[in-house]
């Protein structure tokens, strides 16, 4: 069930620009909008600006220009309000290793303002993300990367925020775990979540995204709806853009002041 409530974007980048203190232009007037119930995949090489974009939404960085908005709230102006409407799953989720899965969920649920949840609900969510019951009360120090990633997405689900940010969520996952993860994202998208996913994984992006953007040198150099890419080889498209980049535009170099 795809629920596009209205056309108002949940996640929106408006001329989003970030120049670091050393002069490196990491993000250059990036624009995109993600409505409810859609998944926006950002593809690109290392240093393309994908993680910078995520960090600007999370207010871990201040934009030099433009805004990262969540439901119309500029993240750098009202960070707490913006963050309350976003869940985040990072690459290689590393939770508290001395805590059990349930204890980790409990802490992050409380951190996101949900004191009302109980163990039964945590178990349900963990089962939903595919974490077997016998692991629920085990310390995370013994968990595989895939199991930790499941805990990470469970934490995002618990927050029950309208937007979800994913930074390289499938990096390092085995094919089965990657597939399960994408299925889960699909179900969250169907629930009406607006999802921003940065990834290197062209195949997964193709499989699940509604819109695919290719980033390079801090700019979006291609942005198309999945339907537009129907029947086209995304790998070829990506390689063609990347090849064009290497000939014409080197990776963001320090700008002289």
């Amino acid at each position: 069930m795809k629920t596009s409530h209205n056309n108002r974007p949940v996640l929106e980048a408006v001329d989003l620009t970030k120049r670091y203190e050393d002069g490196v232009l990491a993000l250059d007037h990036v624009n995109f909008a993600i409505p409810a119930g859609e998944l926006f995949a950002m593809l690109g090489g290392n240093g393309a600006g994908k993680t910078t974009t995520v960090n600007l939404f999370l207010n871990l960085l201040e934009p030099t220009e433009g805004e990262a908005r969540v439901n119309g709230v500029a993240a750098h102006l009202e960070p707490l309000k913006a963050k309350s409407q976003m869940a985040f799953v990072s690459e290689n989720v590393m939770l508290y290793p001395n805590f059990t899965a349930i204890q980790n969920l409990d802490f992050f649920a409380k951190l996101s303002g949900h004191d009302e949840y109980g163990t039964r609900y945590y178990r349900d969510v963990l089962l939903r993300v595919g974490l077997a019951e016998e692991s629920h009360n085990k310390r995370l120090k013994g968990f595989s990367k895939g199991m930790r990633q499941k805990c990470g997405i469970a934490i995002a689900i618990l927050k029950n925020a309208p937007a979800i940010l994913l930074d390289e969520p499938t990096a390092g996952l085995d094919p089965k775990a990657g597939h399960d993860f994408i299925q889960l994202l699909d179900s969250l998208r169907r629930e009406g979540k607006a999802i921003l996913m940065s990834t290197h994984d062209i195949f997964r992006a193709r499989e699940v995204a509604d819109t695919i953007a290719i980033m390079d040198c801090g700019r979006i150099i291609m942005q198309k709806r999945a339907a537009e890419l129907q029947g086209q080889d995304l790998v070829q498209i990506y390689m063609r853009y990347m090849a064009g980049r290497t000939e014409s535009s080197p990776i963001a170099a320090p700008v002289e002041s």
Partner: protein
Amino acid sequence: MFRAILEKEIRDLLGSTKFVLTFAVSAVLIIGAFAIGATRHNLNLRQYEASVAENLRQLDGLTDWNQMEQNRVFLPPQPLAALVSGVSNDIGRTITVTGRGELTATDSRYGEDPIYAVFRFLDLKFIFHIVFSLFAILLGFDAVCGEKERGTLRLALANAVPRHTFIAGKLVGSVAALAVSLLIAVGAGCLLLPVMGVSLSGGDWIRLVLIVLTGLLYFGAFLTMSVFVSAVTHRSSSSFMAMLVIWIVGVLIVPRVSVLLAGRAIDVPSVDHMSAQKASYREQLWKESRELMANFQPKANTACAATDFGRFMDSLMDVREARTQIYTARLNEERYNRQQEQQKLAFNIARVSPSTSLTLATSALAGTFLTLKEHFVDEASGYQDAYGQFIKEKTGLNPAAGIKVIKIGESNQEPIDPDELPRFGYRPIPLDQSVASAAGDVGILAIFNLLFFAGGFLAFSRYDVR
């Protein structure tokens, strides 16, 4: 939200293998320090009682107080001195009281057992000094940068959590968790004292509680410092290295360097130099006395000649003693003032390290600060006056007059009663005086806590979480 972070911090710390191992070692050392202190106190008490009994035993069979060779008083062992030894092992524990003249404490524990001067005793203050600071560093050095390395910081701050709430929860949580666990170990150690037969007065218990609280402030200073350093570094290895250097400099180097610097800045005359000056003055006075003695004319009645001569010698001695006392007091005061100036400078330099404040505050509270020697000598001086008066009453002569008149053939040959000898009632340094003396350093430790707490707060507000 604050509560959730606080609970997480406590649970995370207490559940870590690092905590279990370091706490186990710390607890054993803390309880061990109490056990060793109690054993040593009981031994010191037995030695003290034996020394007092030995001093009285010399009076056995004597029939004249003039026959008493020497009267010695001893520094009674205090239970807290076994826990925070301070200078109690360095200063002399015995003073020979002659009835007049300058008093000197001799027979220090380190003098008797030099091995302890090399390795020192494993006392509670040493444990606080080393173990508390290392415990704090080991459990606090990665408080912020460790969370960044693990990725939990980014995940936590992706929520609507104000940074000040997060760092406050971490700081309060870690201080509470670790302080309570250390208190449990210290509490168990305290319980050992009565079990091992060490009796503490109400005042001693108050002192002990204050010593423990001072230790916790010291621990807090290192813990908040570790959290602060972890909030200005981005790798736990860098934070650990920084704290290790700070620990070496603060705990081991600064106190020693401060003494060297103060020694170079303010010159204090040596004891040898002072002794030479005093001896020279005494020689000069004797020369004057000898001239007067040469002119002594006994009265016609030869039966009283010896008594007359004794009185004459007595009067000469009174004059010599009075002048010596004035001269010695002046020299001592000059040296004392210079020494105080030097000490003050050394302490003030050393106070850049919390370890100095811990040392000064705990020894002041235990009554084993530098003033202990002075206090012991003052107490013995008070006793000397009473003793001198007693001997004069019994013999008719000033004690240590340089002459003894032993009457032979008189009918009274009854043995003297040792119980008549005035007893040395040592009064420890009063509690209020100790507390006043320690207050400044306790305050400094509290300031260290506040400064590093605020520093951690500020550093984290600008911390790059990425």
